């Protein structure tokens, strides 16, 4: 018998889950708890195999509760049950020890699949969550690898710096304030992780961002 505990303050959703597993004799919902306090009290008495955890709880945040449960009950599988799908939030929960991430909009098949996966020590992500994660990591990866892109204004200023002009001269040339030129220069130093104009120009040449 797999015991399941639901921690969610929406009775409707809990009712739906109960309905889904009614015919599954090996699954049983042993408690439906409305908040973190009730949940932690209950877990002290008896620890279930699976916890379905909502992200937004009335007392403390779901993420915090996830971390607490993971710390106290390393064997219990935690499946986050949620209506949000942003990859960065999913990542956060996985980092705090969640075993699965299920959107509330699930079918019975998917639900049973999620239970089986986590019991099999696999991490389960629902379809949409999975797609979002892949996309997210691809973009983070790209951002890490790629050379910073220069904006048009930055290209202009970089070229003039390369010609040996100083801030006030560039300002006069471009009809901008020296203050603005300085801001753009500082931004470029930040982008290329360098601390001087000289180093910036060298790096730009190395990266073939300057045509000289």
């Amino acid at each position, binding site marked *: 018998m797999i015991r399941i505990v639901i921690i969610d303050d929406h009775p409707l959703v809990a009712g739906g889950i109960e*309905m889904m597993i009614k015919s599954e004799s090996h699954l049983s919902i042993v408690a439906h708890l409305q908040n973190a306090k009730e949940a932690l009290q209950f877990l002290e008495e008896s620890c279930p195999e699976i916890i379905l955890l909502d992200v937004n709880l009335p007392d403390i945040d779901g993420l915090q509760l996830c971390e607490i449960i993971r710390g106290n009950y390393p064997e219990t599988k935690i499946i986050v049950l949620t209506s949000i799908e942003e990859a960065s939030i999913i990542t956060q929960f996985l980092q705090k020890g969640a075993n699965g991430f299920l959107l509330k909009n699930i079918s*019975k098949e998917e639900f049973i699949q999620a239970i089986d996966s986590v019991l099999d020590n696999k991490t389960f992500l629902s379809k949409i969550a999975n797609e979002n994660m892949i996309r997210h990591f691809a973009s983070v990866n790209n951002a890490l690898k790629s050379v910073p892109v220069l904006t048009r204004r930055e290209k202009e200023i970089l070229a003039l710096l390369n010609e040996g002009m100083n801030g006030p001269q560039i300002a006069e040339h471009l009809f901008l304030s020296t203050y603005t030129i300085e801001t753009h220069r500082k931004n470029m130093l930040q982008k290329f992780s360098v601390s001087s104009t000289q180093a910036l120009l060298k790096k730009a040449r190395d990266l073939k961002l300057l045509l000289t």
Partner: protein
Amino acid sequence: MRMRLLILLLLTSTALSGYAQQYNFHDQVVDSFLIELKKPSHDTVKMNSFLAFSRYQFNAGQYEDALRTAQSAIRYFRGKEINGQLPRLYYNAGMSATNLVKYDSATQYLDTSIALATKEGNNEVVVLSIIAKALMSDYRTDYEKAVNYYVEALAIINKVAPALNGYYPKVYSGMGRCLIVQKQYEKGIAYNKLVLNYKGFADEKRYHILAALNVSDGYISLQNFDSSKKYLDIASQLYSGLKNPVLGNLIHNTEGYFYYKRGDYSKAKAAYEKAVVDANEAKNYYLLVEVYDNLTNLYFDLRDFNSTKKYAMMAIEGARKHGQISILANSFNVLSNVYKLEGDYRNAYEYATLFKVYSDSSSNEQTRKEILSLESKYEFEKNRQEIAQLTITNLKRQAEINRNYFTISIGAVIGIILLAILFYFYSRYKHKALLAEKETKLKEEKIVFLEGQQQMVAMKSMIEGQEAERARIARDLHDGLGGIFSTIKMYFSTIREQSQELKEQPLFNKSIKMVDDANEELRRVAFNLMPEVLTRMGLSQAILELANSITHGGSLKVLLQDYTSKERFHSNAETTIYRILQELLNNVQKHAEATEVVVQMNQNDQMLTITVEDNGKGFDLNHTMSEPHAGLTTIQNRVSYLKGKYTIESVLGVGTSIFIEIPNASLYKND
């Protein structure tokens, strides 16, 4: 709100009355003043003329003239020791300034008056000035301070009693009022009843009428209508035979309020209408606004919306002029309700926003303070100009006086005085016209300035209100509708599994698909309203998700370059910057026909800079800037909400760059 209406009258009556009553006609006063003034010597006599003239103008309600007279007298007599009358001049100037709602100047005048009078041991003027300061605090709704001043005044009166016994009822009356305004009805009523027991002091009748009205008002608030009526009748009896439209107005206004509270609207209406006539006769527009406000409430209760709107607009116009903030708040609130009931939600919303600005006690206080500090800024400039003007006038007068002296020696006294009067009227007329012109200009500038300030306050509360509302709706969507859809999906999928027939039923499967679509749509809407990632993880992550979701859409690639420290900003700043970027990217998607957009965020020790640069078709800046562009206005508003600035550059065929700078100070705190 109603109680405040008594202040003006108290100010008027506290000490100035009695002096001017000997003069029956304006011309006579002007004549006697001018005659005294034209005499070359006798500063003492001249001082008395100045005092009398400014009192006369004050009692005639010509506060600006009274203030000017007192100011020019102060200039003339400053440094000369004239039988201790100088503090009185300052006191007169302070009273006039108070009635002109120029509190900063009034405070200065009254403080000077107290300092000088204390030095000279003139207890009466000290007490008068302290009472005036108490009333001013009362008027500025700082009741605690007001009561402190009254206590201070009482201490001095006690010390030198019985010389100043006549001031006891005045102090008690003020304290009683403060208590009633602070909803300490029983105590307030007790103090006012005390006033009614005092007999034989200056202005007795007037104070008794006011005290009776205060008691009546207090009883209305206590729902004790029998006692209220009794004191209302006492006030009316005391008033019978008097011809004082200000007092008449107060009585009729209280009477109207009494009947209004009892639900007898026709009697209330009749009384208020009398109060309007009185206020007009007294030319006291402050009191008129109070009555308009009461009429607004009355007509609203009667569901006569046209009249409600009419009176509310009149009340607003007047209240703006006189700084009656609580009346502004009430009028906006009533108007908002009227439009709501009429189904005009746009107007209802706008007025509700205005109401919020003026009613919220903290922002109310804030607005008031801002308005006052603006006031003093202009006041300073105006005073400078007025003083310059007055110096010229005084020189002219001096020249005139000298000339008179010369001619008097020849003997044509009467003729020359006539000439002098003519000249005086001429120069006064010219002077007035000049001042009026200058004042109009200053007022116009002030209005523009205040309107800007008001817009800023309105914008701030609108932005914050809007975001709070969006967050609430997003949450409700997830919790409510989202939960229902999810549960339907769970039920459907359970049913489907139980029946082979349903598994192959196309319509049933289509229904499940539609529940999925509905859920997807709901998440999309909620995400646009308020992305959970923004509140949970901050701006950087939220922008990353936004960029990814746009890139995922396929038609526009967002290159995000985020060099911020990734630490959290204040939630209002995060939301506002997120909205700016959302709107900018939205514009790129809709209008730019771009394939790529760079979103770059840098932060240094002073500010956050944001660049959004697309490779789209660009646009003609001059053309777009000349027409109001909804998207740009929203961005402009939000940038200025964060005290930042932004520049747009666009080249046709190359693309558009937007550069935004936001000071770090706006990112970490919310003011």
